[in-house]
């Protein structure tokens, strides 16, 4: 009987997600509660940075798909072993 290999761990995705969510929440609170005068544009209004960040994340995901589909080429083996240290 062949024993199945253990699944790959998800790494630090969960920890990172919690940390980033906490940072975003803290920043949003500061942004909303900070007392200051009129801002130069709607993009600088409270909460707009969070929307901008979310938009950039979606754009990054879409750009990843698009560029790899349009411009991606398979790599020929370039003999990466040459890059290893030759001390």
């Amino acid at each position, binding site marked *: 009987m062949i024993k199945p*290999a253990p699944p790959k761990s998800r790494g630090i995705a969960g920890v990172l997600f919690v940390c980033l969510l906490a940072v975003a929440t803290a920043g949003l609170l500061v942004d909303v509660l900070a007392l200051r005068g009129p801002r130069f544009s709607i993009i600088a209004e409270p909460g707009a940075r969070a929307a901008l960040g979310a938009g950039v994340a979606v754009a990054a995901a879409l750009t990843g798909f698009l560029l790899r589909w349009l*411009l991606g080429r398979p790599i020929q083996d370039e003999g990466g072993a040459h890059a290893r240290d030759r001390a």
Partner: protein
Amino acid sequence: MLAIALNPGFVCIIAALVALAAPRIVRPALIAGAAAVALWLMLDREFGAAMAARQMGLPVVLLDLDALNRIFGIAMLLALIVIGIASGARRNRAEDAAMLLLAGGAVSALFVGDLISFVAAASLSGIGAAWIVFASPLPNAARSGARMLIWFGLEGLLFLVGVAFQLSAGAGSSEITRLDVATLGGGFLFAALLLRAGAPFAHVWIKDAIAHASPVGAAALGAFTNMLGVYALARLFPAEPLLAPIGLSMIVVGAAFAVAEDDLRRAAASGLTAQIGVCVMLIGIGSPLALAAAEGHAFTLMFAFLALNLALGAVLGRQGHARASQMEGVGRAMPLSAALVFFAGLAAAGTPGLATYVTTSIALEAATQWNGAAPWAITAGLSAALLIALALRPALQTYRGLPGPTQTNEAPFPMLLAPALAAFFCVSIGLAPAWLYGLLPTQLAFRPYELERAGPQLELLGAAGAVYLALRAVKFTAPERSQRLIDVDAIYRGPAAGAGRWVGVVLLRAYGAWAAQWERFATAAGAAIARVMRACDRPYRAGAFGAAQWVTLAAALALALLWQRL
């Protein structure tokens, strides 16, 4: 105190010659020592011109120190010290000399006070940069070096034509001062500097070079090549309106490739292009605050990307690649290097507490002064894009565990110490930015850690990261796959190179046919001449020539008789 009026860059150039003969154990100390001596020479001098002379009626100013070139000089020479430490990790005499030549040329170009000396020093640094790529042990490095030589050859041509047109306007016009893009000389110099800074369409050379350079060489290229372009644009074309849209397009192009590249060294080079785009945009805006932001941002970028390139180089040195798709388990095999990659990625993205944040916040303040909210949004969004590209993607891959035990195979000590030192600079500037502000040419009273500035930046980065991770969890991000992204260089490496080869083959065949025809004609002509010569050697042989001789003699006789009659 004894004041030595020597351009600090010359120390590094002299050290480059010494490095060619120095043993391996001495070379790291030689690199760091040359940088330290150059730093001392620079900081020991008062502002102003020295070593000025006239050659053929033209001013030659080999040293002209001011606040603008001092801040770039400090950053480059500190970066050279870090690179000197890293160079102890491997044995490569040619690369050590090349790095010193690159740094020496770039630092010399900062401090000269006339255009001819600037072009000479910048071209020398270009040769040093190409030599670094040629000296790399990676496959296809020689081809990449040849492409780089072509880029720098084109840049040198533009420089020379620009300087020639400038000189045609009078000897005084060779002094380094603000130039006008609308003039012929100014236009050519502007084009050359855009090429050096990595403007769109010329952004490919830095990616190509960094991807093919050795781990230490890539860090040197990132620190000394396009930063010289940023300095020269700030010096020669401040407040040039064309620069603002060019800088914005650099940000967009660089960020797009950074988030999609599989090779993290190429992604880092694209991220550097995008951040340099911020500097270029700010130079184009041209207000005192924007210029101060551009200079400060270039300073902090040098350390952030130095740390990133060195940390990725450490991974490359042990794993043989720095591809996101193949980095699973690296976090366990190389825990310190993986941590440095993540930290340097955070630094490159402008995370509060680190150096690039304190200059990004000034840049955002300056961007509000330009037309509309789009430049501001693009500049702010770049931090989020680089967080995803240079910090989250590598971290998610490197800390993803492979089944089974992994043997620790950490990078050599100098390759850990050097990025750690660069990271230390990032932290120290990030936590105490006042000394950086004190170095800027413009007096600046700016508090980056006010809640209304730091809070929104955390909000931006946190939201971008959390949303990206959520998208990744539902598989709405492109899977990490071993791929190479083609860019505009695919035109000259693909169809243009193919067309060139085809034209070359056709021309060679045409030449071959012409040469064959010519050979046939020459053979026939030679044979005819030989026949004539042979005939001349036998004048009394019966035949056409004998008859001709008799006819000639008869004609001469008839002419003589006719003459006598007349």
